[in-house]
């Protein structure tokens, strides 16, 4: 079972505010995921190259050619607040 402090730490890093009920459920869910990974971790993987990606690795790069960007009003449309043609956000003070 993931301990409470570790859970609170991870929640804070993810900017999640969890109430007492949510802490209980999340702890149970996270623990079952971690247990599953722990089971996988028991496999003997000596000499097996880590899988960084499951796709085709060849020819995965893009030529340095300019594509059209979004019109600004489209880019800004989902912004909660706009000022001076930019996304207005709370100050990152205290981060």
């Amino acid at each position, binding site marked *: 079972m993931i301990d409470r402090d570790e859970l609170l730490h991870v929640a804070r*890093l993810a900017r999640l505010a969890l109430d007492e009920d949510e802490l209980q459920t999340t702890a149970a869910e996270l623990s079952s995921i971690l247990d599953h990974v722990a089971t996988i971790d028991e496999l003997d993987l000596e000499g097996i190259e880590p899988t960084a*990606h499951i796709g085709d690795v060849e020819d995965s*790069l893009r030529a340095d050619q300019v*594509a059209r*960007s979004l019109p600004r009003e489209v880019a800004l449309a989902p912004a909660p607040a706009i000022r001076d*043609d930019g996304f207005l956000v709370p*100050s990152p003070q205290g981060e």
Partner: protein
Amino acid sequence: MAKAELEPVIGLEIHVQLRTATKMFCGCALGFGEPPNTRTCPVCLGLPGALPVANAEAIHYGLLIGLALNSTLAPVSTFHRKNYFYPDLPKGYQISQFDLPLCSGGKLGEVNIHRVHLEEDAAKLNHVGVGGRIDQANSSIVDFNRGGTPLAEIVTEPELSSAEQAGQWLRLLRTTLRTLGVSDVNMEEGSLRCDANISLRPAGSDQLGVKTELKNMNSFRFIERGIRAEVERQRALIEAGEEVVQETLHFDPRSEAITSLRSKEEAHDYRYFPEPDLPPVVISESMLSRAAAELPELPAAREQRYIEQQSLSAESARMLAWRAELGDYFDAVCEADRSLDAQAAANWVAELQGRLGDQEAEDSKVSASALAQLAALVASSKINQGGARQVLDQLVNEGGEPAAIVADQGLEAVGGAEQLAPIVAAALEANPELTERLRSGEMKPIGVIVGEVMKQTRGRADGEQVTALIREQLGLS
């Protein structure tokens, strides 16, 4: 503890914006100076479902940097997600490299390189509210034009030992990157940014002390001043028996004040994991051979060429090779008059740069051909060193043609035995007592006689020639 017993240990982290046409993982054109938020797309805005694809040219530039720094190039490298929340990072993570960077190890000048990796730049935050400083703002405006710009992060081993050495090495790195053509390397505009890790330890110790990180200094002078100030701050703490706290610091070049940005424990939990949207970067033979073929002459090779082919002193060769602009100016001076002695030309370039401070020679009022002409006037004894320095002063202030300045101000050297001999004779005659001492082998008063001749010629005689004439007239060997 005595002051001399503590030595600084400095490591540098340099972020270089690569001069590609498009961003690291999308086709948006790089957007320096464009109206805000006009160079964005779903990828660099971090919209759900958008897929990044790495820019082949950015990888190529990374390989060029790795080759220039004598690094080991990874046949396969991977991208990772570096997770943290900040409004300039729309995905909640930065795509960077972690345990398999593009380049590992290496060396530039005397400094060993730890690694070079590729990543994406963050967006630009404009803080609104009281003051411009990050910790005083109330709200911020995000401009995503810069977000996703390709960056190479170059990390040195912690083995620099002074602010001056760090400044000099950064100039070499900047020259190298500029020569490679991979970046604008403009510190004011932020295309070259430097952080310094600084700690102190007892001299000779191989243990590292607690380090602090000085963030984002945007000129060579600020870097040198910032490092110096932080070294002194730590020294004072340690000598007072207090402890240095590991933290990130901001240096204000105006007040020289150092303030804490954030403490380290809080900030460093990045939970790196492999970026599932990007396959590993596999470096092919053709990519390697293309990079090798495009490698230009680098400062170290240029330094060597100056020494071997133009017989410059080691000091001159390094000065000109490590500052490419100055080297180019020197080349232009030599080109303007191929009969010039290269070392003499280099000396005049150094004289000029000494008068210009931070200004580049090519931006000054002294054209390369004017400096070549000045060096030639000295070489042919038309003017002496003192006269030439006067001409140079005038060139720096007002520009013009050396020959014309010499004529205008009557600075022609008084030279040749026939002109100087009577003046020397008169000087000896006017100082019979000194002359007698000289004759008896006491050479000390010779300076007085030379000075007398200089006075008579208003400084236009050649000192060595005057000395030779004095010896000749007195029959001294």
